[in-house]
């Protein structure tokens, strides 16, 4: 997309709350936005680095819970007489804490993934997410288990005592999510377009070749995992301070699956893919809400995923972009015009 289109698009996005008065639609966009951030982060690990991490919701939830707990404050009864008391912190600090803690778990997963590859890695990541869910469910002392953590404070902006803006209403949260979304996009885009991003893609495409020219697989996997987890943690933090309640259901495998569907149908390994996928699967449920029950919707999504994997294996965005290129007359990579005469001979171009 050229710069004009990007700016237009951004202006449009920023303008939405000004004319969209329906608060419910705004809410949909906010939730979709949060999912898009999570999907973009998954795309970094799944799409670019080619690691089948199916426990991604764990990072989202860990970010959310950490942020909630830090902003609420908590106490843990360690022994009969001693309790560890953690006082409540301002929400921004909690949010950052969520990102850092999620990033730490990303580091762990990155380290493990080097030892355990392929299908086994998938299983480890799923198990990891399930263990985290069970911990959240059962460690009632810390997380309130199924009773959920509620009354989570919303974001606030400003100088305490002088002026404060509390992000209670939809509009400020919309902008917060939008800005975070843009920031995440920029971070990922810069990373992916750099030598590190090239190395990640090389890892995915042809690992033996990549490692034979010096690409350090472990470090790269860990890097991708940490950045990916941190961004997912940020999404979790946004979620928790917007919805202001969080329970262990946030760790359900179905949410990882949702993110995977968004990334895969949108186009894994592309920057726009998760956005397109996120919009479709963030908004589709609402569109279908009247016509189909949740179960029916999921049946449709499952079938849709199979169909897309079969017919558009790279996802919607790459399919659209090659269709677009085809229409514009064969420009772009891969269309080096062959000379009319003999094919180029090796060695004819002297050094």
């Amino acid at each position, binding site marked *: 997309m050229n710069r004009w289109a990007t700016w237009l698009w951004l202006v449009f996005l920023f303008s939405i709350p000004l004319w969209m008065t329906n608060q419910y639609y705004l809410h949909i966009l906010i939730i979709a936005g949060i999912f898009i951030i999570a999907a973009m982060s998954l795309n970094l690990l799944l799409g670019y680095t080619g690691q089948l991490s199916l426990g991604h919701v764990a990072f989202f939830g860990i970010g959310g819970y950490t942020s909630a707990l830090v902003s609420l404050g908590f106490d843990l009864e360690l022994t009969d007489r001693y309790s560890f008391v953690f006082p409540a912190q301002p929400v921004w600090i909690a949010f950052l804490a969520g990102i850092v803690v999620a990033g730490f778990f990303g580091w762990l997963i990155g380290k493990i993934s080097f030892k*355990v590859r392929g299908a086994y890695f998938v299983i480890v990541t799923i198990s990891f997410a399930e263990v985290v869910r069970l911990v959240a469910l059962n460690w009632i002392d810390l997380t309130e288990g199924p009773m959920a953590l509620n009354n989570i404070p919303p974001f606030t902006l400003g100088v305490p005592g002088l002026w404060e803006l509390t992000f209670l209403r939809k509009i400020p949260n919309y902008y917060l999510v939008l800005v975070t979304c843009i920031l995440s996009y920029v971070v990922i885009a810069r990373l992916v377009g750099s030598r590190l991003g090239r190395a990640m893609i090389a890892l995915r495409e042809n690992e033996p070749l990549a490692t034979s020219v010096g690409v350090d697989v472990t470090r790269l996997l860990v890097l991708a995992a940490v950045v990916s987890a941190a961004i997912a943690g940020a999404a979790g933090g946004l979620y928790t301070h917007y919805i202001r309640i969080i329970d262990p259901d946030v760790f359900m495998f179905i949410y990882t699956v949702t993110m995977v569907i968004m990334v895969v149908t949108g186009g894994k390994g592309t920057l726009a893919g998760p956005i397109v996928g996120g919009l479709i699967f963030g908004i589709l449920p609402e569109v279908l809400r009247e016509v189909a029950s949740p179960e029916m919707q999921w049946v449709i999504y499952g079938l849709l995923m*199979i169909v897309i*994997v079969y017919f558009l294996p790279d996802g919607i965005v790459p399919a659209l972009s090659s269709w677009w290129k085809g229409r514009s007359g064969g420009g772009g990579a891969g269309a080096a015009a062959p000379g009319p005469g003999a094919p180029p001979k090796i060695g004819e171009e002297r050094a």
Partner: protein
Amino acid sequence: MDQFLQHLLNATMLGGTYALLGIGLTLIFGIMRVVNFTHGELYTFGAYMVFFFTMTLSANFFLALVFAMVLGIALGAAIEFVLLRRLRGASIDTTMLVMIGAWIAMQNAEQLAWTGVAKSVNHPFPVDPLVLGPVSVSWIRIFVFCVAVLLIVGTHLLIHRTRLGKAMRSTFQDRETAALMGVNIDAIHTATFALGSGLAAAAGALLGPVFVLVPGMGDMAALKSFAIVILGGLGSFMGATLGGFLLALVEELGAGYISSGYRDGMGFLIIIVVLIFKPTGLFARKERIG
């Protein structure tokens, strides 16, 4: 001590069906290298089929079990043929994603068909348990255990004494050579997936009367299957069998002595621990270095 014996007995009774799940998946995972996300759904399918036959059609309980398993085999073959055949050369991501799609579609279809209300299956065995000194066990569980053992033995015979089994084993060891020797890899894949699915369905059919039926029951079954396969080593029949009993034991002891809330988590912990410390599993076969 009595409590321990009771746990041991419970674990043994349960372990048989866990072994079925594990064997089914290790065959599929081992021979086809597919991360079979639908394994749990076949388990659910088997259970609901027994429910359907006994409760809705009022058929004979034992007949229902047989039907459930046969239908499970058929469904497995259909899934392989329709979905997996054309993905033969595809990357593991693609196959996995298709399997996830199928899993979601199946589970929600089951939800639509049977609703989320828990159902139970009646069985013809006496409800009062058999008391053997300090321990007791219900008749249905004894039956389930016996059938499970029969199926395990039957599968073992199939794999080691029939031509089909021989073809499956050679495909597992060295696919290319097997193909060169005339083994029809396509047919073996279908047969393997069908067999594995049939075993999962059997496990579900057997455990249906023991526990209640909810559409989500397959998820735990699937994850435990993976735990068993990893514990026992990919492709190892013996490993899957022993792994099944071992998992049941760890669950029983964990639930009994630590906390019942974490019972289902035992499987996951096993997965993580084994993969970190001994990734090839306890009884792994030697893989040929290509």
